[in-house]
């Protein structure tokens, strides 16, 4: 199998300061890769490069290779809107748009020009079910997305990304502000989504990485220290820094 995302010697600098150095990492189809590491290790920066939200950061420069389905993400011919539809992203802080639950979910499909009401209705039900939110909101799709609880808002954000049927889902510490029950629901949704897409999960929560990912990568100060199958890495890490981090000695 060929990797879906592949980084080779990939580096990022912001205003001349290196944030990521010589990263070699790949994501296979239908797997959940978690990226762990302390704050400032470059996890989020890497994530934002995959869907080119990095373009919004002034003075950001990249080096090396980053490909999605074999095509260079930073190639000049990349269509940003198309790239971002194939690579969905959920942020640390859930940010529903200030409109109804329904309109939040169909925001992406509407941009694609889908107007047929029954098709949109079907998308809303399917994605809200996939995000384990449907039963809680099916009777009030017209209320504002900002009125939901934090955990519900995050699942709404997940649903609206799924409405675009992405190949990859990027999650940037999606559960950092959530209670354990909401976190469990998000993790449940991820497992059910695995047959359809790949997930890159950036998390500060080492236990979450251990619970829900197939492989784990450990970043420290912009460098990839170690990566491998989650089960192996958490039982017998090869690098002492990895061991120190996952056992809670720093971070």
């Amino acid at each position, binding site marked *: 199998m060929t990797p879906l995302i592949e980084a080779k010697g990939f580096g990022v600098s912001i205003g001349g300061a290196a944030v990521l150095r010589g990263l070699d990492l790949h994501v296979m189809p239908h797997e959940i890769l978690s990226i762990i590491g302390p704050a400032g290790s470059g996890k989020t920066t890497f994530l934002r490069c995959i*869907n080119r*939200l990095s373009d*919004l950061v*002034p003075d950001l420069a990249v080096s090396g290779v980053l490909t999605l389905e074999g095509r260079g993400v930073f190639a000049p011919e990349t269509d*940003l*809107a*198309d790239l*971002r*539809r194939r690579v*969905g*992203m959920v*942020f640390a*802080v859930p*940010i529903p*748009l*200030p*409109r109804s639950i329904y309109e939040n979910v169909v*925001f*992406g499909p509407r*941009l*694609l020009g889908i107007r047929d009401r029954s098709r949109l209705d079907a998308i809303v039900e399917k994605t809200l079910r996939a995000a384990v939110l449907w039963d809680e909101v099916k009777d009030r799709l017209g209320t504002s997305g900002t009125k939901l609880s934090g955990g519900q808002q995050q699942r709404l*954000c997940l649903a*609206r*990304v799924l409405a*675009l049927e992405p190949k990859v889902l990027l999650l940037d510490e999606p559960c950092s502000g959530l209670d354990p029950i909401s976190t469990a629901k998000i993790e449940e949704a991820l497992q059910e989504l695995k047959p359809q897409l790949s997930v890159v999960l950036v998390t500060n929560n080492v236990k979450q990485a251990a619970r829900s990912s197939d492989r784990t990568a450990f970043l420290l100060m912009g460098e990839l220290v170690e990566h491998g199958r989650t089960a192996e890495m958490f039982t017998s890490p090869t690098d002492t820094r990895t061991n120190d981090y996952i056992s809670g000695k720093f971070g």
Partner: protein
Amino acid sequence: MKKETAIRLTLLGLAMSTVTALAVITTFILKEGVPVMFRQGPAQFLFGTEWRPSAEPPVFGVWAMIVGSFAVTAGALAIGFPVGLGSAIFLSEFAPRRIAGLLKPALELLAGIPSVVFGFMGMLVLLPWIRAHVGGPGASVLAGSIILGIMILPTVISISMDALRSVPRSYREGSFALGATGWQTTWRVTLPAARAGLVAAVILGMGRAVGETMAVIMVTGNTVQIPRSITQPVRTLTSNIALEMNYADGEHREALFATGVVLFAIIMILNTIANAVSRLGRRS
């Protein structure tokens, strides 16, 4: 401790001076202006179209001036708001930092140009152009609208920019991450979220246009009449006061103060609406 109290009281006094000035001006205008309105009959004063201060007995009706002020203001908004909003969107959403850095000071400079200079440019350049290419005497609603449209730009642009910039960056990122382009994000997410601030920009721009005097006197012709087309001259409320105060006395002078009362009321209403709207926007 003593010193602290003294400083606090001094600062309180300084802060109160603004309120005091407002109170003094308000009382004075009302005291001077309101009696003549009632002698004339409030409805007659507000909706009468005759303004003949030297007739026997004199007739004071400011309706033509109210219409004139609103006509020129509406025209100024029709010109100034699209241009101003477009500029604000460009500066806050699309402009590379270097270009924004050049345009922002230029805008502040525009705000600093004295209004008599605007009027002067209007008389020299705009009026002959209108006479030659649009028709009429030149001095007109149209000329006032164009000049005021340019004069309200700094107000409209800076308030619109504040409104757009106060939309959380995360809204834009969320929209971009869903595959929206820059314009789709602006149109479907940023502008609706900034709606309240944009309304405030319109209303404060209106306030600026209603209150402007010098430039308006110089380009609108100042005839007391209800304009039938945009090429006809008009007189605004502010012009009425500024033009006649020099030689007015007695009841005529009081009637000019009464014109001030009307102006004052209009501006108070506009400011109250602007405040209410932006407060509503912040809550939602």
